[in-house]
């Protein structure tokens, strides 16, 4: 009978301890699921592929000017995009990158030979993005465009020093609150979304956050490349929550055979 109080004390102490914390790398359900093309708003459409704060601010200024009320939206969109290129993107390019900027879209390997995009375009790909939990230590980013799949390691590992560069690079990630942060390096040299060359020294930090109302997902990507950029480019993209969407086979690409060169558009 003397043992009973002792056991009760032990039991009480055990019950008073907090439950074990959930795994730190667990993906919040806020981000998991299917996302797709942005809402049909002016800013969402401007950021259909990718955009910058400089471009968004210019677009909003144009929309707020009564003198532009009669002008078609595509005109305003093109003007904001030109402003973004002239005042934000082009000044960030190094002399080396400027030598070939803007690249001729007719030379794009995806266009000529159906070669899937590299990271710098794929991470901004239009249409579906599925964020899928694979395990406690891994999530996949699955894109409709090219049916590309990126693996993000969440176990705190370092990037292997001998990891060879690849099209989509090597990604490690973590959560900061509800924000998924993905750091990618070891990316093979390729083409950026603003139509310039980048080197295999490019590094990207992506931050994925869901809006308070749950309807949109915003990516803010900081892109560094000591060969191609004087200073980082910070680019954005918006998706719409789209559980009804699905990724369909991407199996009918045909290499281009008849086209015109020299239609470069920055």
């Amino acid at each position, binding site marked *: 009978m003397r043992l009973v109080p002792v056991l009760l004390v032990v039991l009480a102490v055990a019950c008073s301890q907090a439950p074990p914390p959930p795994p730190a790398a667990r993906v919040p359900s806020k981000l998991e699921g299917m996302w*797709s*093309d942005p809402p*049909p*708003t*002016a800013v969402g*459409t401007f950021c*259909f*592929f990718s955009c910058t704060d400089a471009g968004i601010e210019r677009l909003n200024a144009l*929309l*707020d000017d*009564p003198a532009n*009320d009669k002008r*078609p*939206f*595509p*005109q305003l*969109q*093109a003007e904001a*995009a030109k402003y973004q290129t002239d005042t934000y993107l082009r000044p960030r390019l190094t002399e080396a990158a400027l030598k070939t900027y803007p690249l*001729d*879209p*007719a030379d*794009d390997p*995806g*266009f000529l030979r159906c070669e899937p995009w590299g990271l710098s375009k794929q991470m901004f*790909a*239009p*249409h*579906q993005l599925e964020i899928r939990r694979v395990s406690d230590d891994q999530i996949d980013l699955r894109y*409709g*465009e*090219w049916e590309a799949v990126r693996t993000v390691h969440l176990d705190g590992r370092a990037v292997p020093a001998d990891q060879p560069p690849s099209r989509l690079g090597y990604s490690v990630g973590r959560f900061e609150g509800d924000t998924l942060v993905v750091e990618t390096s070891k990316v093979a040299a390729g083409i950026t979304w603003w139509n310039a060359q980048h080197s295999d020294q490019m590094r990207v930090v992506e931050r994925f956050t869901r809006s308070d109302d749950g309807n949109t997902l915003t990516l803010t990507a900081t892109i560094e490349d000591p060969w191609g950029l004087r200073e980082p480019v910070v680019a954005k993209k918006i998706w719409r929550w789209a559980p009804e*969407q*699905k*990724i*369909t*086979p*991407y*199996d*009918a*690409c045909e290499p*281009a055979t*008849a*086209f*015109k*060169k020299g*239609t470069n*558009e920055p």
Partner: protein
Amino acid sequence: MRLLRAFLLVLPVLALTAVTINAHHAFSPVYDGKRTITVDGVVTQFRFVNPHAMMLMEVKDKTGKVETWNVEFAGRLNLEEAGWNAQTIKPGEHVKVTGNPAWQSAQRMAFVKLVRADGTELEPGRAQRLSAIEEERRQRAQQRAQQPK
């Protein structure tokens, strides 16, 4: 087969393609986004695939010779967002199609609009998107007008 009549109507148009819907590759090396043409004919095939849906149609030219035209659309990934499916356009349909002409191929265009024999129109998702944006702009202008000066 119903009478096929082909005509080309070349018009300068706004660069609607500035509303970037095509992804996989740039539009400009293949198509002239500043012009549109319209042809009238019968659908022989509609392929609802990625990265671009394709349609073949038979069109008679002014001399009565039948030509095969190739119409390129955005991909299935994109068209499904606008509610399209593999049955949206059916072989045998008589249609009038407007599109941006290819630079290098005489019987090829990028889809802008399709009108069926009963007069109903089919437009890509970008038309719906532009319509929603114009409504947003109207509301924006109204709010601006209500603000004290």
